[in-house]
């Protein structure tokens, strides 16, 4: 097997006394797209921020190791980390408008990445920028260079963000809910674009999403998070076609499209426990339809390639 681009091992993040993320491990190979999927508060976004070393000061990494191309990111000083972001590691977030600077043109913002990381001159950078805009499917690239973010639609802005993220041909792209703020038909365009580019550039891709449909359609592998832990992981198609964890199973069953119109949906009772009140055992136990006495102890994630952390998995 090819060496993974990104490897996360035993990542544990805390805020105050509350654990946000516990013992999270996964790896992504070149050209592979892994989805970290789960509901709000499950720890998927904070995991992405830890990878980029962009955690808020109140959040501490108390355990675990993150390596990119084999080098430990914790060992880098701030300056080295800054050089790495935007170069070996590209990032896209949910709301492109807040990530783009409103007073600079699209061309200047993409060129900036190349000038900082590649030391290109303004002129040389602009030539490459037109190529990048073409790569991300913006029509008439030369005409786009002088436009400001407010002159673009949401979908076009997200394409610009992707162009910025890919400017230095990163080994890893981290995309945190990249299409959640976009209209449905534009969502499909952007996901298809990311999918094409990761294959074309042989780039490892970490997709953070709450949308199981997106995972099933675009990702190679999926890791399902619940209350700060990965509870199930494996090939995306397999995980959702034959879910083994009771949470994944319930999640798939409750989706409206999986049920006859008008019928009562098999809802998951209760709510996700907030950080700090997750108890000792399996966090899903209080909502689980198949709970056993063992569930008071924490189940380990086991099995390959399809792993599950459950004492009483779906057979």
């Amino acid at each position, binding site marked *: 097997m090819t060496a993974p681009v990104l490897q996360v091992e035993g990542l544990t993040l805390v805020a105050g006394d509350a654990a946000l993320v516990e013992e999270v491990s996964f790896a992504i190979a070149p050209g592979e797209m892994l989805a970290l999927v789960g*509901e709000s508060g499950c720890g998927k976004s904070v995991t992405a921020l830890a990878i980029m070393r962009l955690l808020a000061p109140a959040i501490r990494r108390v355990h675990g190791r993150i390596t990119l191309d084999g080098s430990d990111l914790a060992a880098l000083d701030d300056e080295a980390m800054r050089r790495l972001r935007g170069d070996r590691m590209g990032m896209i977030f949910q709301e492109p408008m807040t990530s783009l600077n409103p007073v600079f043109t699209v061309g200047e913002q993409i060129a900036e990445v190349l000038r900082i990381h590649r030391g290109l001159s303004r002129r040389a950078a602009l030539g490459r920028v037109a190529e990048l805009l073409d790569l991300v499917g913006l029509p008439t690239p030369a005409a786009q260079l002088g436009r400001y973010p407010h002159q673009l639609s949401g979908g076009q802005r997200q394409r610009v963000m992707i162009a910025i993220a890919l400017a230095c041909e990163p080994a890893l792209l981290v995309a945190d809910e990249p299409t959640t703020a976009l*209209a*449905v*038909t534009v969502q499909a365009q952007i996901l298809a674009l990311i999918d094409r580019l990761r294959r074309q550039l042989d780039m490892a891709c970490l997709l953070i999403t709450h949308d199981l449909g997106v995972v*099933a359609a675009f990702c190679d592998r999926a890791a399902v998070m619940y209350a700060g832990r990965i509870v199930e992981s494996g090939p995306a198609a397999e995980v959702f076609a034959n879910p083994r964890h009771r949470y994944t199973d319930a999640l*798939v069953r409750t*989706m*409206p499209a999986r049920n006859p119109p*008008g019928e009562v949906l098999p809802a998951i009772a209760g709510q996700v426990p907030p950080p700090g009140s997750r108890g000792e055992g399996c966090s899903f136990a209080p909502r689980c339809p198949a709970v056993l006495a063992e569930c008071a102890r924490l189940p380990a994630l086991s099995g390959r390639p399809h792993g599950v952390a459950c004492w009483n998995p779906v057979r």
Partner: protein
Amino acid sequence: MTPLLEVRGLTQHYRTEGGGTLRALEDVSFTLAEGEVLGIVGESGCGKSTLGRAVLRLTQPTAGEVWFEGQDILQLPRAAMRRRRRDMQIVFQDPFGALNPRHRVRTLVGEPLTIHGMPGVAARVAELLDLVGLPAESGGRYIHEFSGGQRQRIAIARALALSPKLLVADEPVSALDVSIQSQIINLIAGLKRRMGLAMLFISHDLSVVRHVSARIAVMYFGRIVEIADAASLFDHPAHPYAQALLSAVPQPPGVAPRIRILLEGELPDPTNPPPGCAFHGRCAQAMAVCAQARPALVPRRVGAGVRDTACHLYEVA
């Protein structure tokens, strides 16, 4: 039979800063029977939320008529309109933005009753909390103490306080997580069955709309482009935009994926609408006529049947 709601030619324009006209809603007509759920789908900016607000006269529509139980409510004087509002309520996407954080839940839920001078507020509030599945002691608490799903339950209890006949639900589950979403969908569907509520269910999430609606209207660029019973629309969308929209939604695991029709480009500029069919610039099946004449939403021959769709591909029936 007279429908509960009949909307005719409803149009909502706004002035833009530059002195232009933003056409948020153009000539929208439909009917809604008592106890019926009509789903309204479309992408951001298509006018679906504007429609929900205009129907309740929360905005002042530019043109058109909204007949509710045989009265054009757009013509009602203020006081009469206020009385009419008892029968028509709305639930929004973000319950936190719709509920005053300084009031206790019992005040929030009872407020419509107080405003309309109804007796027995305390007893009715207890009944409503129970109806939406909240424990009785919730009444003494504040909104920040509740999760998103519980807040939406509170907003629904408040909307139902006056036993309305029509509920506009504007993206009521879009801000909620999947596991909570189904709880609220079940609640809304159950209430509809028990109370015979008619609903306009507005959402960008097609599978949610399909689940709760008997009929569905697809909107594009301020207009309804197709309206049909939910099953026919999902099985055989006729309008090329409806086809593309349905195909764009990633199907959940275990549901056979549709052949994806990737649309080129994006929505046109609503201050400068294109001539003809607003969709022609993105439509793979566009003909010369599509750039010139706007197709009317009328019954047309689609396959062996007849469908209300606004597309020149189909002959007027």
